[in-house]
């Protein structure tokens, strides 16, 4: 469903991504990990064209993201994305956050958008908070709203960029639980995370990156069993303590 082929990306003279390739199939849950600055966020943002690449090709559901003729807005509307800092719109209520893109982008009627939004809000257990503003919710609650917002667009796949790293330790689980639920329902997901517990539980593929390169791209069992590169082994030893 997502085909990344030999992409390269530079910021000025600095190469962030070097020859990265990977495939995500329908229903896959892919976890991307690696040291800070290794290009994980950049990689995941290239998938829906938020970061352009200078070289290589990306196909999502057989649509070429890298083709200048592609209507990126339309494509993005079909891929849900959840950010580290939630990025809810602080000036809109939770309900408005859930409906604005449905109305403006998918041209749904307000009633339909509301119904859809509230359905997913209920799914993440926050129906009672629909009239609050994001600033009035805890971090974990905000992140769950962000997930509901992405789901309201009926995405064909979901991208997560360190969805729990800005959360208080107590709240990490409430978000991971929602994500586990999604994975179990068969949602195609790409997840940048350091939560190896989550990876072990639901991932079927692990990509390990370092210095802009994909160092490992294998099944969960291969990765945790015997990571092939010394860099990955070193990383795992640091992160699990």
């Amino acid at each position, binding site marked *: 469903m997502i085909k990344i082929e030999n992409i390269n990306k530079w910021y000025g003279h600095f190469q962030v991504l070097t020859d990265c390739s990977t495939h995500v199939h329908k229903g896959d849950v892919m976890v991307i990990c690696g040291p800070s600055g290794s290009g994980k966020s950049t990689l995941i943002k290239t998938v829906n064209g938020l970061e352009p690449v200078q070289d290589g090709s990306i196909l999502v559901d057989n649509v070429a993201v890298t083709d200048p003729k592609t209507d990126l807005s339309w494509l993005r509307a079909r891929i849900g994305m959840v950010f580290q800092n939630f*990025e809810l719109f602080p000036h809109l209520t939770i309900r408005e956050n859930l409906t604005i*893109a449905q109305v403006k982008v998918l041209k749904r009627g307000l009633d339909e958008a509301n119904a859809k939004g509230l359905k997913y809000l209920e799914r993440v257990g926050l129906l009672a908070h629909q009239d609050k*503003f994001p*600033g009035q919710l805890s971090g974990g609650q905000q992140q769950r709203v962000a997930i509901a917002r992405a789901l309201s*667009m009926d995405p064909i796949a979901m991208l997560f960029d360190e969805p729990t790293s800005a959360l208080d330790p107590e709240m990490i689980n409430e978000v991971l639980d929602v994500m586990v639920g999604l994975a179990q329902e068969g949602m195609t997901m790409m997840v940048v995370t350091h939560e190896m517990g989550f990876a072990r539980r639901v991932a079927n593929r692990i990509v390990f990156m370092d210095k802009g390169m994909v160092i490992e791209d294998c099944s969960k069992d291969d990765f945790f069993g015997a990571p092939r590169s010394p860099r990955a082994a070193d990383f795992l030893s640091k992160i699990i303590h």
Partner: protein
Amino acid sequence: MLGNFDFDVIVRSWGYLFQTGMLFTLKLTVLAMAGGIVMGTLLALMRLSGNRAVSLFATGYVNLVRAVPLVLVIFWFYFLVPYIAAWIIGSPAPVQVGAFPSALITFILFEAAYYCEIMRSGIQSIPRGQVWAGRALGMNYWQTMANVVLPQAFRNMIPVLLTQTIVLFQDVSLVYVLSIPDFVGAAGKVAQRDGRLVEMYTFVAVVYFALCYGLSFLVRRLQQRVAIIR
């Protein structure tokens, strides 16, 4: 000296001071603020645009305008606007533009440079992630700006925008170079005609202080009201 303050001159010219002078000042302030914010926002978007030519043009405009004293800008525009208008509508002779439209155009163009800088830092203060979130939901550039970035930038910047408007309110007094009677100008004219400068300027200072202070007090109240809950 203060003993023989002649308050009568204020009473006598009350109508002129307020119905002509203050009305003009308020009218110009409000219209120039509205126009300036709209144009300033556009300029800010231009400055932040990825297109180098566009952003260079906006940057040049802003820096040029900010380098020239407003008095001189008002002066130049009074004479140049008729020629510019003639050039736009293709009239062979300069078009007569009244002092008020000329002042309004000048203030909008001038203040836009300042509002631009405010809106620019307002837009830049919005986390980049907000733009990404908008784009990731499928909104295009203009939808993201209109629904996500600008409403927040605007709210965050309301205090600075209003502070700038208070500056604008005071700057309107510079239209004396066009001899249009704004509040200060009206007071000045009365003062000069009747030789009562001290009384008039003291009165002007008191009125301005009361209004500006009141306004900035309101700004602070408003700031607490509209601040986005974070």
